[in-house]
């Protein structure tokens, strides 16, 4: 009796293993290392009334300015940012036509008077900063000290192409490094009840690790409002999933143009609320806190 029971269990085990084979039920992802929120930098905001006066624009220069908007008009304020190599932050302050520089702990350092409202900025090679003029889309070039370089023509780094293949997989067309590294990166997103919506390549770092942002949803029925989650993943150059960030808040008061940035293994998120600008930081260089499954 005991022997036949064991045989039955063995057969059941084999059956389960066979159903997880590539041609059977989709294989669930191996345990993914999940990175918790490491740090939140809080930068104070000054919310203006409906009046924009010289006094209100000059008040509290170490803060960022926000205009709350109105019915059928979105609030207006910081929507662009990037991170310098030393961890300091550049954030657009469009109401004052400037870009503000904050230290790696969020302390105000100085402001660049750029003379136009900017909605996005990107730090490229050698600390050169491309700042986008909101009303024209034109890119202006600045050096790391905030000096305009009018003779320079700025071009944003080419976006690495990505593609969603089906509800749980996609691919990123990374440049080929050698036979074992680089080339197409397979993104597998096997989460019961969740459908993969989009893949966006955020960065490829000096180790040739790739950072991608994924959006996923539990339901396509948006009768009560769209619902979705966002993830950031880091993959090694040979395509191995190293870790994942799964707790990205999506409650934006001012919709960001530059939502996520990656610098030296840290993922930064710009989240402008009605009372402060939060820079949420996840350090993917640290050890995993826990597997996500």
């Amino acid at each position, binding site marked *: 009796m005991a022997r036949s029971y064991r045989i039955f269990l063995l057969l059941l085990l084999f059956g389960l293993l066979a159903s997880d084979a590539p041609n059977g039920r989709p294989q669930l992802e191996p345990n993914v290392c999940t990175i918790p929120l490491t740090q939140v930098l809080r930068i104070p905001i000054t919310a203006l009334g409906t009046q924009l006066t010289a006094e209100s624009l000059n008040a509290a220069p170490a803060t960022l300015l926000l205009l709350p908007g109105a019915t*059928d008009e979105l609030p207006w304020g910081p929507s662009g940012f990037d991170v310098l190599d030393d961890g300091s932050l550049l954030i657009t302050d469009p109401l004052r036509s400037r870009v503000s520089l904050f230290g790696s702990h969020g302390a105000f350092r100085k402001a660049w008077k750029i003379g136009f409202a900017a909605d996005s900025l990107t730090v490229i090679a050698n600390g050169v900063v491309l700042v986008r003029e909101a009303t024209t889309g034109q890119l202006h070039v600045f050096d790391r000290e905030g000096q305009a370089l009018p003779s320079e023509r700025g071009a944003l780094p080419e976006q690495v192409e990505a593609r*969603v293949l089906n509800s749980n997989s996609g691919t990123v067309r990374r440049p080929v490094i050698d036979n074992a590294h680089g080339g197409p990166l397979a993104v597998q997103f096997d989460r019961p009840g969740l*459908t993969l*919506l*989009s893949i966006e390549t955020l960065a490829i770092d000096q180790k040739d690790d790739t950072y991608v942002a994924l*959006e996923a949803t539990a339901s396509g029925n948006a*009768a009560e409002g*769209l619902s979705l989650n966002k993830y950031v993943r880091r993959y090694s150059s040979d395509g191995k999933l190293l870790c994942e960030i799964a707790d990205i808040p*999506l409650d934006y008061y001012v919709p960001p143009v530059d939502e996520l940035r990656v610098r030296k293994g840290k993922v930064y998120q710009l989240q402008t609320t009605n009372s402060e600008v939060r820079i949420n930081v996840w350090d993917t260089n640290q050890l995993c806190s826990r597997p996500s499954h």
Partner: protein
Amino acid sequence: MLSRLPLLLVCIWLISGLHSHAQVGVIARLPRTTRAEMVARAKKLANHTWVCGAPNLRASCSKKYLSDWKFGQRVTGIPYRWGGIDGPEEFDRKLADGLAAGAHSRFGVLKCAAGIDCSGFVSLCWGLSASGHAYSTSSLREIGGKPKYNVFADMKPGDVLNKPGTHVVLFTGYNLDGTINVCEASSSQARVVCRKTTWSRFKGYIPLQYKGIED
């Protein structure tokens, strides 16, 4: 009180009947349009090029007005005007008449300015005339039905993503990476723009489909 209950129910039935009858009337009067026409109108509003003259930098009806533009600046996209619903021809005429180019809510609804806001933009894309009823993001629901589809896979060009009281954008297509293309009258960019964007910006938005569509 209980004896009046049937009367109350009859009243509710009559009022709801009147309301649905009025709704049918509104829908019957809606101009018919195709999805291709909606997207073409959106692109026309986003690609409309104009030059800002000196009179267009001032608003005669507002002392506190500040312009988003510079003298002689060549701009692509109809400027943002809170409460506005000017199409390209109407905008050009007002610009030539010396009205201000665009205005934000902090200056109020300015009659002396020309341009378009987010719900005005969607209304024009849906083929409603500038002189017709002005719909806000809160009243767009009257002429836009809630589709029962999967918004992430089955939305069609010309449908909108709306957040009542906040903002509305016109959907124009999906991309291979799963992001979407939208056109909108953007207050922060001060004009009508079309762009590629991720979904996270639209958390809480509701899809609507124009009731006068010719599919």
